[in-house]
């Protein structure tokens, strides 16, 4: 059994209440931080822990905190990003539903470290039930003296509010989130300035993911050095993985970073293998935005070594043969799934969610969707495949925010690894409407694949 730092008590009845949460050691981190540490010391512990942002980009949290500008007489804000909308990711909802106090406790300690006296948790609007849960938890914490004025008699004041979103994936992007929190359209801001200098209401602001903030609790309880001992290399600690798709046991798992991918998919402790006795065809390992990989490259690198669940290992091989950790949304595709259809589905998602500010993303995402739709429904041409690659290149890197890249990568990677399946859709337009290309050679052992990958390294 791997170490559990966040979900250890998930199955304890009543753990969603302050009472039970405290019986299990909850709010120790608040006591420790506020009574025995200075804000800078808390930041120092988080730096030592090596914690990397769990929202997608993997940026070291302690470093991000130390960039926060601290001009005299200007308020600072901590905003928790609970917009969780990346297809394949559902860990934050899970955490907030079952252990809301883990997030509240993390928010108190983190706000203290950053010197924020008002903090917001921006929750996507669809999570109304979770908003109610958090509001209840906040009321409990306030009644117990963990929030409000003069917390635990230390002189530190903090108000914590929950803000609902309105239904827009783009509001997960931190500057779009801040715009939305200011009551505006969720258009990402043009950077610089970065939020650390001018964020919410023009004040210095840190935006962190739910899981990043919850992880601060064990870091303070056990010390940054202890936390850094868990995991592998620069991927320290544990990570919540949202597992979905054709798995025997989909769900949220806390893993120690460095777990072999094969063990995660097939062992009974985690996903228990592919559902209905089928075989694995492909995975999207970190949420819909990261490159899709065929089964063989999911389990092993191009050189045959096993791939691990860590930031470094998942991206081993670059975009040619690797992928990314992203937000930890692990989607498994069995042999009956159609890669073209899924690529079209994801393209439709990004088209639907583009904020429309910058031309390459606004126009390009719709173009990708339309071409993919035509391929999926039997009207495609051979030249469409290269057209898709070309359009995705014209979006990638030329936009205001990374949504453009996120829309381009799934398309480019699907064609990189599954070009024969796309071609089959063109050659067999009728057959492809009623049957699937199947597993083909996507699961055959790696050695054969190396050559091919090099050839169409797009």
């Amino acid at each position, binding site marked *: 059994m791997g170490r559990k730092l966040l979900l250890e008590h998930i199955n304890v009845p009543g753990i969603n209440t302050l009472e039970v949460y405290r019986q299990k050691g909850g709010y120790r981190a608040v006591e420790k931080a506020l009574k025995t540490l200075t804000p800078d010391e808390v930041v120092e512990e988080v730096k030592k822990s090596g914690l990397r942002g769990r929202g997608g980009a993997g940026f070291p949290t302690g470093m991000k905190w130390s960039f926060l500008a601290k001009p005299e007489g200007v308020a600072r804000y901590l905003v928790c990003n609970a917009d969780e909308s990346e297809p394949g990711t559902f860990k934050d909802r899970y955490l907030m539903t079952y252990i809301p106090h883990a997030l509240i406790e993390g928010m108190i300690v983190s706000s203290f470290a950053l010197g924020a006296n008002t903090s917001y948790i921006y929750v996507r609007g669809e999570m109304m039930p979770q908003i109610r849960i958090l509001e209840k938890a906040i009321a409990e914490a306030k009644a117990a003296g963990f929030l409000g004025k003069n917390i635990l008699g230390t002189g530190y004041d903090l108000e914590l509010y929950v803000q609902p979103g309105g239904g*827009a994936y783009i509001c997960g992007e931190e500057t779009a989130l801040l715009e939305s929190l200011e009551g505006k*359209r969720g258009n990402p801001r*043009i950077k*610089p300035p970065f939020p650390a200098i001018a964020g919410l209401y023009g004040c210095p602001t840190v935006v962190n993911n739910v899981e990043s903030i919850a992880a601060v609790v064990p870091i303070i309880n056990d010390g940054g050095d202890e936390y850094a001992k868990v995991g592998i290399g620069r991927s320290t600690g544990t990570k919540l993985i949202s597992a979905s798709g054709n798995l025997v046991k989909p769900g949220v798992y806390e893993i120690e970073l460095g777990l072999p991918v094969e063990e995660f998919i097939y062992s009974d402790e985690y996903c228990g293998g592919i559902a209905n006795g089928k075989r694995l065809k492909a995975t999207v390992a970190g949420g819909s935005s990261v490159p899709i990989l065929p089964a063989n490259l999911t389990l092993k690198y191009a050189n045959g070594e096993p791939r691990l669940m860590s930031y470094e290992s998942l991206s081993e091989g670059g975009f040619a043969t690797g992928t990314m950790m992203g937000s930890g949304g692990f989607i498994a595709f069995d042999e009956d799934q159609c890669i073209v259809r899924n690529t079209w589905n994801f393209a439709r998602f990004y*088209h*639907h*969610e*583009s*904020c*429309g*500010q*910058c*031309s*390459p993303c*606004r*126009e*390009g*995402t*719709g*173009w990708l969707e*339309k071409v993919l739709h035509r391929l999926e429904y039997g009207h495609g041409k051979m030249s469409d495949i290269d*057209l898709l690659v070309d359009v995705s*290149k*014209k979006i990638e*890197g*030329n*936009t*205001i925010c990374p949504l453009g890249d996120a829309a381009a990568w799934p398309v480019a990677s699907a064609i990189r690894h599954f070009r024969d399946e796309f071609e089959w859709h063109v050659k067999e337009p009728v057959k492809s409407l009623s049957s699937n290309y199947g597993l083909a050679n996507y699961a055959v052992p790696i050695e054969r694949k190396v050559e091919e990958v090099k050839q169409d390294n797009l």
Partner: protein
Amino acid sequence: MSDLMKVTIDGITVEVAPGTSILNAARQIGGDIVPPAMCYYSKLEGSGGKCRTCIVKVTKGSEKDPRPMPKLVASCRTTVMDGMEVQNITSPEVLEARNGVVEMLLINHPLDCPICDQAGECDLQNLGYENGLQRTRYEFERRTFERIDIGDKIQLHMNRCILCYRCVFTADQITNKRVHGILNRGDHSEISTYIQTAVDNDFSGNVIDVCPVGALTDRTFRFKNRVWFTKPVDAHRDCNHEKCNGKVTLWYKGADVLRVTARKDQFGEVEEFICNECRFEKKATADWTIEHPTHIPDTSVISSNHYETFKPLPVIKENLALQEANKVELEKTSKF
């Protein structure tokens, strides 16, 4: 921090005040190395960054930190650093990416230039001409909207809009009340008032001048003429609106004033915003004191009729890279 910043764009070095954007530094140099800007507008705070036509490559970040920037950047929203080196038209990567942006801007554009009032003074037309592909690769139906009148003075052809947000910034910053804005999301976004209201207040007509395409047009433009048959003349009147100084361009056909616009500088931006009275109500020569024919850049279709020849800036004569960049224009002048 009063020291000037040295920045080199396509091999030409210029010294600019701290805080200047790459685009504005390039404008100080002038000529072909100025990136095209479809959404940035120096008079509108917060504008820029959206259309992505002005992208350039920063090959050296600064003297202190010489690393190149990993991606192409929007020159209108990137501040120069001392010692920065930038490539615009000398970088094939930039030109290719810009072609891509232009292609994106055109895939849903109606390409109705033959019937568009803006034809001849449209930034998109110029841009498409310089960077566009010969043939469209987009084989789907183009997005269409109804043409609507927003008040009795202004007409909106949403099909042509490139969502540069300039008219929104103008309404926010120049007029005293904004009633139009951007509705919906993504490629369904549209400029609209949502409910039927007229865009109408003293300065609302300026949205027509800032619009880089023919999406917002002057309903009072008489006889609907092609701009290149009209003859622009600078004129002024004693306007008693406190914020308007009455300096305009009159567009003549024969002896008739067809329309009135603000005066525009060499980058297509208005010099000063004008009030609606000057723009919409004063269409008789007697209303105005005529100054002289308007200077029209040589690249514009309007100048195909007439006048001024291209006069190279002194800096161009001295600099080989700029001479190369302005080859076409220089050849034209030597022909004259």
